[in-house]
């Protein structure tokens, strides 16, 4: 069992069955299915950021670049009027994103702390403007993806991505896989060394590990999964736009990650769900939804540091 922590087990056993059953209640209502799918997709993105920031100590404000790239890369490499195989293109996109992350990582990881925040932001902005001012990639207005890929594997197709419910389950499965993936990484030798790198880089270096290399590998993995999330988002509505790469996207992902409980990985799902829920409620309450949202973020930083995951963990501890 990869889920060792008690609260985490609790979460997995409650969340995933619930998520599996939810569409049965909402079958009439495509909107809620779509909304939940968007949350699942964004949770994949937030999770990769949670790993980077919470587990590697690498604070980035430019992670949205890879989220956006996931969508744009598909447009760039896939033929426009032909359905392609999902898995093949997932592989292409993740590999290309990983190569880009490798190059960016070499520059970015030379810095640390505040400089890293700034340079990631700058590189993401560069990328944002590249697409926003481009002539061939839809510019500021964004692009449409006309054909959804098919998901058949060895001739077997379980998911039809044009069907919102199928797409929902597909994203749920992806989310679970990502959660499992990060847990496996963390439980491995690599993950434990990464812990050491985060807590005391100097001592880890003294022990003979190449800290830079470990960070770089983490950065590449997180970026590849972020691009996978962006790819899914692009497929959901068949639409990509430079605003996916804006620093606001990175910023809200950071807020979600903290809200869920930084570094807890599964907390990313909680944080994304709660943030999106609040956003939805505030937005329907008032045009000035920014105000309650902003106040909530401020209050969260001030008094709710350990996030929802931390809160639940405390609660579970106390009940023992």
């Amino acid at each position, binding site marked *: 069992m990869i889920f060792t922590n008690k609260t985490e087990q609790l979460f997995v056993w409650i969340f995933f069955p619930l998520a599996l059953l939810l569409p049965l209640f909402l079958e009439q209502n495509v909107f809620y299915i779509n909304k939940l799918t968007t949350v699942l997709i964004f949770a994949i993105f937030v999770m990769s950021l949670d790993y980077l920031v919470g587990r590697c100590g690498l604070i980035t404000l430019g992670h949205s670049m890879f989220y956006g790239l996931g969508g744009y890369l598909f447009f760039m490499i896939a033929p426009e009027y032909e359905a392609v195989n999902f898995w093949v293109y997932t592989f292409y996109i993740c590999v290309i994103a990983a190569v880009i992350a490798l190059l960016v990582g070499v520059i970015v990881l030379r810095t640390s702390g505040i400089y890293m925040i700034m340079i990631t932001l700058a590189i993401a902005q560069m990328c944002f403007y590249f697409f926003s*001012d481009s002539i061939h990639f839809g510019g*500021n207005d964004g692009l449409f993806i006309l054909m959804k890929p098919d998901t058949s594997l060895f001739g077997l197709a379980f998911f039809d991505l044009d069907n919102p419910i199928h797409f929902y389950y597909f994203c749920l499965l992806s989310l679970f896989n990502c959660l499992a993936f990060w847990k496996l990484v963390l439980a491995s030798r690599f993950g434990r060394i990464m812990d050491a790198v985060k807590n005391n880089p100097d001592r880890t270096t003294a022990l003979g590990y190449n800290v830079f290399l470990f960070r770089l590998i983490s950065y590449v993995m997180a970026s590849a999964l972020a691009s996978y999330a962006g790819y899914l988002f692009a497929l959901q509505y068949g639409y990509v736009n430079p*605003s996916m790469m804006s620093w606001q996207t990175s910023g809200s992902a950071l807020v979600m990650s903290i809200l869920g409980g930084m570094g807890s990985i599964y907390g990313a799902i909680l944080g994304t769900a709660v943030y999106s829920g609040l956003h939805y409620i505030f937005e329907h309450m008032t045009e000035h939804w920014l105000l309650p949202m902003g106040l909530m973020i401020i209050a969260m930083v001030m008094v709710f540091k350990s996030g929802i995951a931390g809160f639940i963990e405390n609660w579970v501890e106390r009940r023992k």
Partner: protein
Amino acid sequence: MVVQLNNKNPGKTMNHYKPLVTAAAVLLASVLSSAAAVAKEDPIRVGIMLPFSGVYAALGDAGRNGLKLALEQNADKLHGRTIEYIEMDTEARPDRAPEIATALMSQKDADFIVGPVHSGVAMGMLKVLRNKKPIMIIPNAGANVATGPWCAPNVFRTSFSAWQPSYPMGQVALDKGYKKVVTMSWNYSFGKESLDAFEESFSKGGGKVLKKILVPFPKTEFQSYITEIAALKPDAVFVFFAGGGAVKFVKDYNAMGLSGKIPLLGSGFLTEGTLAAQGNAAEGIVTGLHYADELDIPANHRFRAAYAAEFGKDADLYGVQGFDTGLLIAQAVDKLNGNISDRDALIQVMEDAVIPSPRGEFHFSKAHNPIQTIYLRTVENGVNKVTGIAAEALEDPARGCRSN
């Protein structure tokens, strides 16, 4: 289930109930949506997808006011049906457009979806709404594609296409004797389409576009571009900017001492809703548009008086376009005696509609874009004075539209 409105007092009462009702709606939507039976007494659900926050918020607000005013004035023509407004803030963010459009279509089961302001948002909406059940009415966004390659039976536009206000200006420039012109706008589709439309007619008549300057959106540091225009010494400059960018550009252009020397032409948005902020700098700018505040026709006087009385401020173009959207809905409902359940019949009466707009009467082209007059306007003493007609009953070429 959401916001039930009495026709006589729209607007104000709804905000009180909105939070409560929405919270309930979140929980109960699935139950209620299946329970909703189609009856003639049901309200007509009008989804509004406009920006109420961010850069375009003022435009969204005016559009909403106009829409509600028209439906209020025509309440007696709705054959007893009430209107239920479902308002959604697009934040002018294209990436959220498909989601919100889906919400209005599937969750709220809207009969009409009115929006948006921003062309990028329009693309996202079209992606979801084309050939679906709700009727989409665009009260502003002018991207040519909406009534061009992406036209659809259920998509109408009560505003304009980017092509319309700019195309006649090429001829206007030629008539004034300009041979070499620099064109300039923000680098997004609407801006580019405006410049292309101008160039189309200008080049056809033998004019030459010296340079097409595309400024990254939404940059407003224009100083270096204006200096470049001065270096090129054209006969005139044709620009598309709107809102804050238009204010900034006109002021900078004047401050650099060019306004008396190189005449400024534009798509009408350059001086629309911005004159107060532009002040003296805007004097003498010549623009083309399908409306002018000062337009001297009875429908316009009536509209402006009613709008000012209702909302305590002067109407603008965006209010007019919202108003016409409301007229279109009211007329369609009236012709069908309040029964709008037959979608094909609804589309048919909307296609045949003649809208007694404050901008002058107009009807729709095959691609569902208004066939309308483009007025020539010159800024004099802080108002857009109508000095002539740039093109009578101008129809967008609707390039690439096949489905209608």
